[in-house]
């Protein structure tokens, strides 16, 4: 891989480059869809002004789900290596820092990076088999690693000291989890890392601090992941999804990039998971891995598919839609006099099915296309691109193609 950048102005001075970057970052001159994206980000920032502190839990959870969805998208949306157990990395990050904090008294400031690193190692462990296992086999491995992890939590619920090394001398806590770790933000005297005001205003500030901290994390993750996926590494990811042989023929080591995608994704999920348990989530297998230890991972897939795979921004849109279904149901409830909330998560699952079948590119792509069509017709032109919902250039369409080829190979081998 050559490291030289195909800069927009090749061979320019650094002053000219800075000028070009600034021009690119000027919101007025941006394409419409970026402006809408920035507006969405602004809405995220302004959201707390419309809510009471005790309503902040939902939006904060939403942001964490978006972070996890983005981390899924890097590996599955871009390289096409479907991961069905992404909560594994979240749990690794969350449990590492929680155990370090509760049982070894190590501050979250160190515990969170440690959790991130452990998740990264988990990414190597899952990524290595991905180098030699194809389609359905890899899906199976990713599907069962969180289940095995959850069994380990139960198995070592009282103490976890492999080879005499006291990793978690008081155990991993089984179904109840290792306990509540130190919070990053709390009211005065609560022992949190950052102690805020006391009393009710402290509770208010805690809720806001959790929210804005998560939001800041989301923006950082968004910038990093967009940076990686729009760079030359991102092109290789996409190339792996489309045709691994072509990547090899171009003299690139596809395995290295696959592993990189897995580790990057795991690091992000681990970081998110670690911060999650220090802000709004108590680490338990049910809370982090979900029902049957797989529901959470499936939710992340649903979020990414709803928003649009292979876009990084898509999962944020997906997470918002995910949260909105809950709110909309809550609003409809009193109107029809029937407790629709009991139906959760049925409407969401139905929505995911519909998107899968009718708009495999996800809501983000469909709305960008829809928007272009509207703009084109407003200008009195004919829209040249594909129609809404077509899966022509969608990442999912390419993942499908890759999977199909792998399945065909497996079936042919047997004959």
């Amino acid at each position, binding site marked *: 891989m050559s490291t030289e950048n195909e800069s927009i102005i090749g061979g320019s001075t650094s002053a000219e480059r800075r000028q070009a970057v600034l021009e690119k970052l000027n919101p007025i001159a941006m394409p419409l869809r970026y402006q809408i994206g920035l507006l969405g980000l602004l809405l995220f920032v302004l959201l707390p002004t419309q809510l009471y502190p005790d309503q902040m839990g939902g939006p904060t959870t939403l942001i964490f789900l978006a972070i996890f969805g983005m981390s899924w998208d890097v590996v599955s949306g871009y390289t096409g290596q479907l991961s069905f157990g992404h909560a594994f990395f979240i749990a690794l990050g969350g449990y590492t820092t929680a155990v370090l904090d509760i049982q070894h008294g190590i501050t979250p400031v160190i515990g969170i990076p440690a959790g991130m690193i452990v998740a990264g190692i988990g990414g190597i462990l899952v990524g290595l088999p991905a180098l*030699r296992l194809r389609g359905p086999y890899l899906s199976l491995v990713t*599907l*069962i690693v969180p289940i*095995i992890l959850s069994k380990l939590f139960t198995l070592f619920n009282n103490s976890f000291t492999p080879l005499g090394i006291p990793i978690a001398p008081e155990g991993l806590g089984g179904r109840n989890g290792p306990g509540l770790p130190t919070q990053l933000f709390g009211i005065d005297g609560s022992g949190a890392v950052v102690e805020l005001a006391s009393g009710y205003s402290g509770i208010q500030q805690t809720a806001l601090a959790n929210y804005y901290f998560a939001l800041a994390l989301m923006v950082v993750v968004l910038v990093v992941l967009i940076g990686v996926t729009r760079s030359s590494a991102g092109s290789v990811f996409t190339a792996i999804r489309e045709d691994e042989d072509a990547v090899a023929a171009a003299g690139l080591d596809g395995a290295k990039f696959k592993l990189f995608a897995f580790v990057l994704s795991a690091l992000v999920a681990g970081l998110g998971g670690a911060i999650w348990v220090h802000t709004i989530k108590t680490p338990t297998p049910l809370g982090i891995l979900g029902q*049957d230890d797989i529901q959470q991972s499936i939710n992340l897939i649903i979020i990414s598919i709803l928003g649009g795979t292979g876009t990084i921004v898509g999962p944020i849109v997906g997470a918002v839609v995910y949260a909105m279904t809950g709110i909309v149901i809550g609003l409809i409830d009193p109107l029809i006099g029937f407790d629709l909330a009991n139906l959760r998560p*049925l409407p969401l699952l139905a929505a995911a*099915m519909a998107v899968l079948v009718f708009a495999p590119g996800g809501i983000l792509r469909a709305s960008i296309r829809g928007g272009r069509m509207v703009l084109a017709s407003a200008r009195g032109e004919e829209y040249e691109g594909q129609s809404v919902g077509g899966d022509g250039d969608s990442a999912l369409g390419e993942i*499908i193609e890759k999977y199909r080829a792998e399945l065909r190979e*497996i079936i042919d081998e*047997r004959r």
Partner: protein
Amino acid sequence: MVSLANVVINAISISSLYAIIAIGFTLIFGVGGVLNFSHGALITIGAEASWLISGGSSPLELGLNPAVGLIGGMITAALVSGALYLGVVRFVEDEPVTLLILTFIIGFFIQHACRVFLTGTGNFSVDLIVGGSTNLGGIGVQNISVFIFVLSMLLVVLTGVFVSRTKTGKAILAVSMSDKGAAVVGIDARKINLVTWLLAGAFAGIAGVLLTMKNTGTWTMGTQPLILAFSIVILGGLGSIKGSVVGAYIIGFTETITTQYIDSSLQGFSALVLLIVFLLVKPEGLFGREAAE
């Protein structure tokens, strides 16, 4: 201390249940190339249907004979499975990833629907089809375990005979070997697919009812067997019926022996670790290279 003989009998009966679940899963894969993740939900459906028909506390209060419940569970699951094929799978058949994720989501949908509309989060039970226990050479054996073993083995043998002797069975085999070749000799692949989906659904339904009789039923009861069935099928080789039966016994015995003699919290653990080792060493499975039988 449970006697060794009892552990073995328990292992045999649970393995034979896994075998029929795995056969359904592998048939659908072999014939249509579809990894059907809603298979677990069909297990739940069979169980819930039998509970509606013959359960003591069901809202229908039919309270019919458990045998009727068994047949009802089988038919309901088969019908739902057939409807899944006709209503959904048929349209996205050549898009494996969409299908994979879609069947996953449909499976969750069905299970959650069962929870919301039928049984809630609690356990439910149905009467045993044959109660009591028999004394076999000094060992007390639960009759239901024997029944499960006999019925499952009967189904396995019948499937074998069906596939190798009857016209439809041979057509199934033909489609799983080559859909083009099958089309050349005038086999309607759509029809054959439907037959395998019905068959797989019926097997899953029976397994669900029997699992409920053996233990108890819950809305999530299908997930664990689904993951085990997936493991069994990979262990035995994707698409191979013989492999599924052998794989089911390997997984069933590992599972029972570790939970019985090492730690009961290991349920579902040793089998999965075994599987990962297997995947890394011999990914094509035990019978991976032979044609589907």
